């Protein structure tokens, strides 16, 4: 269940940014998650809802962009997508490739939200 730690980290990063930016409500948080991160979408959504509760991030949805594994094949001298995302093998020449170009990302792209209204009395 590393998803709970990951969800808490997402909430903390977005919350501190929202405070700086004067964002009052957050609709969506966009993530990039590499195929090699071992992050389960359903589990992350579940943990995110719990972690966001009681913060400015509460109620926001997660939009997860999956990043596939991309390898550099030294034999073919080009970037290749392996047939099995978890085996580092060139689909053409079948050589094993150790050079990973993408697939380990775990990033917050950004978030959409609504700014606090200026000049409105806080009653």
């Amino acid at each position: 269940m590393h998803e709970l730690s990951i969800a808490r980290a997402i909430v903390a990063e977005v919350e501190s940014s929202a405070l700086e930016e004067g964002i009052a409500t957050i609709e969506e948080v966009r993530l990039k998650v590499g195929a090699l991160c071992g992050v389960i979408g359903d589990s992350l959504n579940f943990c995110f809802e719990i972690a966001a509760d009681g913060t400015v991030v509460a109620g926001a949805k997660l939009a997860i962009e999956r990043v596939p594994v991309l390898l550099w094949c030294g034999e073919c001298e080009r970037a290749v997508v392996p047939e099995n995302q978890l085996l580092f093998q060139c689909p053409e020449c079948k050589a094993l490739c150790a050079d990973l170009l993408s697939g380990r990302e775990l990033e917050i792209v950004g978030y959409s939200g609504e700014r606090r209204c200026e000049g409105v009395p806080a009653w």
Partner: protein
Amino acid sequence: MVSDDSFIELNRRVLRANDLVSGGLRERFAHAGIRVANLISAPGTGKTELVVALGELAASAGVEMAVLVGDCATDNDARRIAASCPMVRQIVTDGLCHLEASMIGEALSGFDLAEIDLLLIENVGNLVCPSDFDLGEDLKVALLSVTEGEDKPLKYPHLFSSADLVVVTKLDLAEAAGCDLGELGANIAAVNPGALVIYTSARSGDGIGQLFKVLAVGG
């Protein structure tokens, strides 16, 4: 009333907070001249038995070794390790399935880093979660025993593909367990081509010297 829908770009790593702490630890370790290894495996692979054997070797080689050991509960492992390596501290995570960099920083307080040559961090037994959390180590070490099945690296590629070193344990049981070491090696290579693999037995002592050398001084 004016409102403004905005998209705020962050483009930052989710585990940035952990990475900031682990980056600070890495600097402290480098400054103090400490080599650090993060040992990750399933529960029952034999990490603690291996650490005990490494501790005996360190004591005889005059290398000052320290150990931080993480478990969900109990200090059993720290007590086992203390017999060969007195500089040991247990981190009880109260159920958390991995160690995070901030826990390492806290657990080190009270240790004189200048006295330590080699720090082993025995992570919580888990093949998935610990691999995302950098602890400031020089080497991320994935371990598996000959009794866990030759296809384990294929089942848990997240860890095995990102490890700097793979250690096979319980080599003395290979024949009894019917483990095909050739197939095991090929499966490690399939997810981590070029990875250094060391075959060990804490019981017989096989491979312990080679492993100790790689951990304490590098390749």
